């Protein structure tokens, strides 16, 4: 089995303050030193259970289907940190490309900081072994 400590990867975080129940946009360039986007996660400590990832795009192409329920990529602290990513999508080749995330929380009641984490790697085979082990 692949050991996580030997895997070349990085977790890049997108932060945004959620101030109402409307759609919020998170936009950032991905780390140019990594070649593939292979996972996405949201901490569920703040976001509502009915939150929606309206769009997740890289280079204009959808990474996840539109209106993807955020609950599918959310997990509690009971899940090991390296197992909190959702990876059931085709790995996305990247090269410092801009990533766009449109997020909404219909049950919003107070301001909170949303953190979306994306997993980037250079070694596709190794990281996939870790993610699905």
């Amino acid at each position, binding site marked *: 089995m692949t050991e996580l400590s030997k895997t070349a990867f990085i977790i890049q975080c997108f932060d945004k303050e959620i101030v109402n129940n409307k759609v919020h946009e998170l936009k950032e360039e991905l780390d140019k030193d990594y070649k593939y986007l292979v996972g996405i*996660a949201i901490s*569920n400590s703040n976001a509502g*259970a009915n939150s929606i990832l309206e769009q997740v795009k890289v280079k204009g192409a959808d990474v*996840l*289907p*539109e*209106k*993807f*329920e955020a*609950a*599918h*990529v*959310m*997990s*509690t602290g*009971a*899940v*090991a940190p390296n*197992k*909190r*990513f*959702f*990876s*059931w*999508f*085709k*790995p996305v080749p990247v090269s410092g490309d801009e990533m766009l995330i449109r997020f909404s929380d219909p049950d919003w009641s107070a301001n909170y900081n949303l953190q979306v984490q994306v997993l980037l790697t250079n070694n596709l085979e190794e990281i996939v072994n870790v*993610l*699905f082990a």
Partner: protein
Amino acid sequence: MYSLHKIYGGDLKNQGSESFRFTIKDFKKVCGAFCSGGVNLSLAFDNGKKVLLHGFEFSKKPDCPPNKRPLFFKEPIEMEYISGVANGTMGKESSVYLILE
């Protein structure tokens, strides 16, 4: 490598039960399925001849790693189209996804 496809998306208008059909193109294997929490899902493959799920209830499991939540099929299946029924709370926005290889 895997690819994710939404095969149903809607608000379960018909008294909380809606049927759907999906034709697979460019993929020959289905590796798994998942859907919104609280939805009972039935899926039939091979032009309706092979029922793989019948009223299977998916629940939200935040304590389970996201990659482990889908229902995985032991044998990948080749097919022409799949059909299914999603049951749940009427008016609740719900989705059904297939993992294709």
